[in-house]
């Protein structure tokens, strides 16, 4: 019984966290993009434009939920949840304080890498069930991209697992030492790049490339279902930033005890903002260049990192 209750509480807290992070993420993205582009961004609705996002959220909820006639209605309607739920599930294993995670699992890192990547299924069925050529191409691109970037991402995390000697995220945080950052530098870069690609964000946003495929796999979605795709993107960004800040940068241990959460959130914010910065600086890649980057650049680099760690570990 307590397990069920705990599950409900965690679910609610997680849902609120993702919704809030989406609102903060959208606001931050619009403000940072505006700064980069010599604009102001939202500033009319409320102080500093802060009420723009509640207003947009309300608009999104109230908008008509359209199902196109040529779409496979049942699959079309559930596809957004297939994207959102795995990404939200990935959040539970991330340690949020030194020594504490919502789900303290002995295979937490494996869980984090495996479960969110199931969202590729949602992208594929969303693209296919729309009955729209743009969406179909977007779905296919998304599937190819996410499967390719899984490999370098997993390999880059593996280096940390070898150093810590555990798949339990809490143990990794406890074992973390400052010299892991220089030692793991290549791995951190590979993790960062492949996380952006895994989230289908610019410069790797080819499944939704707005200049070719209009909006790719979610071209036909409207209202709250479109909003769920949006929340998955920002939820994924939150998860990747939290995981990076906890496992790679060890920000939870920078300050003693519970104060670690301050540096942890700061580190998450820095990683998340830099993802926005990258998106608004670089143009989009072409699908073949994207694959070349995954298989010919990032995967070998991650393997080099593994070799470096493998050589160092016996001397520790």
């Amino acid at each position, binding site marked *: 019984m307590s397990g069920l209750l705990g599950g409900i509480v965690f679910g609610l807290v997680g849902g609120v966290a993702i919704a809030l992070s989406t609102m903060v993420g959208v606001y931050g993205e619009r403000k940072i993009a505006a700064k980069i*582009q010599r604009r102001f961004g939202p500033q009319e609705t409320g102080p500093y434009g802060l009420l723009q996002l509640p207003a947009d959220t309300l608009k999104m909820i109230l908008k008509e939920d359209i199902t196109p006639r040529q779409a496979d209605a049942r699959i079309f309607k559930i596809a957004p949840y297939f994207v959102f739920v795995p990404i939200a599930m990935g959040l539970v294993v991330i340690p949020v304080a030194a020594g504490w995670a919502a789900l303290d699992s002995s295979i937490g890192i494996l869980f984090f890498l495996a479960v969110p990547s199931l969202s590729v299924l949602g992208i594929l069925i969303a693209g296919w069930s729309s009955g729209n050529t743009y969406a*179909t*191409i977007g779905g296919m691109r998304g599937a190819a991209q996410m499967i390719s970037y899984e490999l370098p991402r997993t390999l880059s995390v593996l280096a940390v697992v070898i150093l810590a000697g555990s798949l339990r995220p809490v143990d990794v945080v406890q074992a973390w030492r400052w010299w892991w950052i220089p030692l793991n530098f290549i791995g951190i870069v590979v993790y960062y790049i492949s996380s952006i690609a895994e989230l289908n964000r610019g410069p790797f946003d080819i499944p939704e*490339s707005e*200049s*070719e495929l209009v909006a790719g796999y979610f071209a036909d979605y409207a209202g709250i279902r479109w909003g769920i795709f949006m929340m998955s993107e920002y939820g994924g960004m939150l998860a990747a930033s939290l995981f990076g800040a906890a496992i790679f940068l060890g920000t939870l241990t920078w300050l003693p005890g519970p104060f670690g959460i301050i540096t942890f959130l700061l580190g998450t914010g820095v990683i998340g903002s830099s993802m926005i910065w990258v998106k608004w600086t670089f143009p989009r*890649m072409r*699908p*073949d*260049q994207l694959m070349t980057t995954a298989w010919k650049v990032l995967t070998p680099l991650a393997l080099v990192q593994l070799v470096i760690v493998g050589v160092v570990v016996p001397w520790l």
Partner: protein
Amino acid sequence: MTLEVESRKETLAEDGLPVEELVVNVGPSHPSTHGVCRVIVHLDGEIVTRAEPVIGYLHRGIEKMCENRTYLQVVPLTDRLDYVGSMYANWAYCRAVERLAGIRVPERAEYLRVIVCEMQRIASHMMSLGSAAADTGAATMFIYAFDERETIVELFEDLCGARLTYNYVRPGGVSFDIPEGWTDRLLEFCRTHRVALREMDKLWFGNVIARGRMKGIGVLAADDAVAWGASGPVARGSGVNWDLRKHDPYSVYPRFDFDIPTGSAGDVYDRARVRLYECYESCRIIEQAVAQMPGGPIKAEGLQRLIAPRPGDAYDHIESARGSLGVYIVSEGGPRPHRVKFRSPAFCNLALLPLIAEGHMLSDLVVCLGSLDPVFGEVDR
């Protein structure tokens, strides 16, 4: 030529399963068609096997409308041809009318025409570079380029009251003289524009992803460029050194010292680069023109409002931002032209799309289309 979407090709894969070609209708309303162009794209996976541009969605019958208006009333119609470079169509049309009616244009007006057209070239190239960048998802470069264009548009607004459709060049001269302090702001713009161009050069052409997207894509051989009647930056990007300002000098252009940048590879990168360097050259021309500009009238003396040339025909062409823009007018006497025909460079350049885009990927198709810089007001007329 079949325009039917249904005309798809069915082949069998190695394992005997039928493989259907995917046919995508890009446009007529699409973020990257730079207006209302429809491209029927046949896709084999991501590869474009066939691309057919379908035009006519912005056809307003401007050439026919010209026949029912007086010579002066046609000028606002020419604004609507190439709506990001209205000054060119104004000027090309006015040159043809002046040739037909034997009107002599005062020297100050010729200088003003050169200045506004070179400003227009910068504005148009900024639009082209910016939207070509937006085609690859680089929204920041788009905003930076439009920031530069905005200054020119504001200067035009102070000059003639309009930001887009200027109606500035009229038969016999120009409509307004420059306001006070305007040339100082223009020279200041030329100075800051060079800095901005260098910044954009680093941001856009120096970016490794942007280079990867542009180099070797949409290669147009010099022979093909000549054979298909390409002109402007599209032809010059392929190394065809053809610019009417040098090769059929008109107005006061022979008095200025400027170069014609040409590319060599003929790919998207070279075409974009030619546009960037042309902005530097336009700045040079503007500075020389401002320094040399004489005083005097800006309109031809004793010109009647109702121009009625004797029967005959006249053709004249100028180098617009997109290429050789020609105007042919037939007069049968009387105050209205009998027939007006525009030779639009955007139309001729757009015809190259299947040639340069086939065999590339869908992502490259929009980049190729952007590099041709079509403006559909001028393509469809």
